[in-house]
């Protein structure tokens, strides 16, 4: 039986360092080298100070669930077998918020404020996706 593939993120030139790091099991975000503000996903210009200069820096991968929803509609056929599934917004300890999924926890057990940490899920040779799993608080 043929499986419909989930959308694969485009590896834009800007995001290459992110995916390079993800393959190594590291979560990286952009850091403005002018004012130090962290941001994700990639942008060319810092929204805080408008600097064009940035570097990619590794973050802890720890954070908490800022919010989540539970998707009951299959907007894309590849997700049809998974509904209802949860999408979360994780607020990283370092500041940026990132959309992801939780692994190892049923949707109805997800709570705002739940402490989580990153894990990586290999999609193909080029792309590994950061996902999150519950962790002990602290």
């Amino acid at each position: 039986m043929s499986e419909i593939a989930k959308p694969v993120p485009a590896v834009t030139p800007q995001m290459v360092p992110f995916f390079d790091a993800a393959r190594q099991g590291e979560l990286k975000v952009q850091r403005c080298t002018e004012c130090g503000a962290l941001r994700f996903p990639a942008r060319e210009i810092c929204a805080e100070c408008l600097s064009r200069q940035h570097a990619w820096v590794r973050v802890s991968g720890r954070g908490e669930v800022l919010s989540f929803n539970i998707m009951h509609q299959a907007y894309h056929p590849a997700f049809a077998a998974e509904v209802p599934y949860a999408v979360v917004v994780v607020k990283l300890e370092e500041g940026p918020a990132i959309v992801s999924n939780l692994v190892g926890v049923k949707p109805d057990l997800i709570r705002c404020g739940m402490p989580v940490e990153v894990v990586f899920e290999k999609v193909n040779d080029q792309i590994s996706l950061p996902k999150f799993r519950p962790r002990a608080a602290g």
Partner: protein
Amino acid sequence: MSLRAKCAIAGLGATRMGRNFDHSNAIGFAIEAVELALADAGLKRSELDGLLVNPGVTWMTNPMASFDLQQAMGLRDLSLTATMNLGGATAGAMVMHAAQAIDAGMANMVACVFADAPLKPPRPESAKKGAGSAAAYGFARGLEGAYGLFGVSAQYAFVARRYMHKFGATNDHLGAIAVAERQWANLNPAAQFHDQPLTLADYHNSRWIAEPFHLLDCCLVSNGGLCVIVTSAERARGLRKPPVHILGMGQGHTGGDPIETLASGAPIAKRVAFKMAGVELSDIDLAEIYDCYTFTVMVTLEDYGFCNKGEGGPFVADGRIAPGGSLPVNTGGGQLSSFYMWGMTPVCEAVIQVRGEGGERQVKKHDVALVSGNGGILSTHSTLVLGADA
């Protein structure tokens, strides 16, 4: 220098709404709406010299929608036009732009138009669309589609969930808004849900879309067009319908991430608009609040100060905003139960109420109406204060 009551809404045109195929595209609905507004005001097409357009989703293919419409209906020698898009805040912003231009002597008679035609007639082999776009709302949240994040409801649900977590609001509270608006719609013959009552149990039984949103937390999908004609108060007094004066107007655009702010731009927009109008909250007789989701009403009522921040749930729970309640809100049924014409839905209903044309749903005291528009998930906001008297 204040623009208080310098201008007025002199004409209102509304096509049939919802699942109707009177026109094959949005431009057709737009033309009909403008014609209806001209007739309502007793004006000829040639008397229009300004045209502002907020194209709906199916009309965004041409970035120059107002030029589309000018050509499509043979309008000549306009002195003002623009295609505008602040999402759900656009309708209010168009009225503001029109009033400013009229006051500045740049135009005399400005049509502000919204139209959309997302519903298609049934086809034998319905070609269902594939992936939704998650990029529509200007929040960079990462690799959304890869995680199954599609559509605006899912984005809005993040904000609602966080709000409920922080303030303890419940689906009963959201449901109370859906029920109240349905009760208003049951009194409005033009509403898509005019004939269908709704209980809180029905609300809870409606399927989930993106938790915490049930289907009945979400606005309708509608084919239709709406037009209001703005002119000077002086000119409006000589026309067919009593003027609906624009007493105050303002905008507020928060920026930042609504999951963290949990607030709209209403406080900023209100400050400007209420000062211009010279009104306090206690002067507001009815409120037409932008309601793409039930949740939006809750937050907006708080942000205008009808109750404290975080208390929007209990505030709406006891029928306060329903027919017979102390604060009439979305008196035509809103976008949840009447029709979804973005920010033009609340503008339209406010005009009807201030004129006293509300029929069975007419509120008794209708001197001052508040109109809110909201777009980009609580990120853009417009406020109009409309009144019968200058």
